[in-house]
């Protein structure tokens, strides 16, 4: 018991060197990642604004990044963090292209509502 009391309650930064991960820390982070992903998905389904829909996919990407880093910490492997770099790359490319498309669509119909383009779907009989 004295051993556990000697450890600091709040330890934000490690002193260096590889240490074993704390399982409650990993679980808490994974839980946040799960909730962020679900909220992002709900947002993608409910928002009608095209820009907001893309922003919600960015939220889901954030959740995935968090899970990558948490699992990397669990296995004491830096590859998880390298994956986040690639996710950032894809997110930046996606933002540039998707926003360019949104601006084009906005010029055509003067609205950001995704339902303005619902005629693109197949006829429902």
């Amino acid at each position, binding site marked *: 018991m004295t051993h556990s009391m000697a450890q600091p*309650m*709040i330890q934000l930064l490690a002193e*260096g060197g590889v240490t074993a991960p704390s399982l*409650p820390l990993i679980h808490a982070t994974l*839980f946040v990642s799960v909730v962020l992903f*679900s909220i992002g998905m709900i947002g993608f389904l409910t928002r009608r604004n095209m820009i907001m829909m893309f922003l919600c996919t960015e939220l889901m990407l954030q959740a995935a990044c968090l899970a990558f880093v948490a699992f990397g910490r669990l296995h004491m492997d830096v590859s998880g963090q*390298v994956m*986040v770099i690639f996710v950032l790359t894809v997110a930046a490319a996606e933002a540039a292209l998707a926003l360019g498309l949104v601006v084009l669509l906005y010029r055509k119909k003067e609205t950001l*509502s995704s339902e303005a383009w619902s005629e693109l779907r197949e006829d429902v009989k």
Partner: protein
Amino acid sequence: MTPYALYAAGLIGAIGLYLLMRPSDTPGGTQTRILGTLIGLAGVAFMFVEVLSRASAYTLSDGSPLSTAFGGMPVPSVILGMAAIAAATRMVTHQKPVYAALYFILVVVSTAGLFLTLQAEFMAFALIIVYAGAILITYMFVLMLAHQSPSSPDIGSGWGGDVEGGTRYDRVPREPFVAVLIGFGVLASLSHAYFVDNAQLQVKPSDAAVATANADLWHSLETMPRRLKAEVKRVVPDMVGEPIAVDGQLIQVRDGKATVRVMVGDQPRDVTLPDTAQPTNTQEVGLALVSSFPASLELASVILLMAMFGAVVLARKQIEIGEDERRDAAGMRRLSVEDPEMVRDAARGGRS
């Protein structure tokens, strides 16, 4: 321990989010939103407690409980996680897109804080710089660019003429019940996959695994010869030449301590490196990026290049090339319709 408490807490959170999605300008909307905030907060807090109690209930291989072995609960993670979840909820339910984008920046900052607790310092600051600094600014630009004019038919229709409240499609969510149901399904199945019967997440890495990871980190210093030499020189200023390999390795790791053999005068000597000589997180990430994932790095650059081309092509103003412009380019006379005499000439099929 049954996982039903976890799902029940998730359901409470989902109900809270559903109530939060009611537009505030419907009758009783504000009260519904306040109620939704409280219920959602309770649900998320309940889930947090459930996850953490499950995590600390796992025991080590020698039977001692984890919570005493790891010095208590991850307090910073819980605070940052709650901030991230609250900001994400506000982002999804906010009626003005610009504010929603600002709340997303709050999510990014909280996530960066969580990265810090996971010892990913480089990624934490890269996330803030790239996401909050670059990507979100692009979003803000487009939101401002596509701002709805007050005369737009989208404004003010629906409930009341509250122009300040934003456009109708931002105020009224689409199919909130179905969406929350699907979101709850995702939440429950992901929670099940992570927190129920997941052997990988219940076993703390062994001391041997930690020692191996530590030794790997020390050995990665061998790929940075200049830094290695500088670190050795800091301990032994009068070293001669380069570090000498023993059994094909420049660095020997024993009991977490790294030693390097160097020549001092004409005698070989084993020098123990200080802990500060270990590669930092940034060096680790950089090394892994170029040594383990070189092909992915090249592909990422191709993706960025293609995105740049695509953005330029999309943003370019489309110029209609009509018959007149084509005739100009070919050095021919225009078939202008502005001159009535020429139209008559053209109709007669005459030359002029």
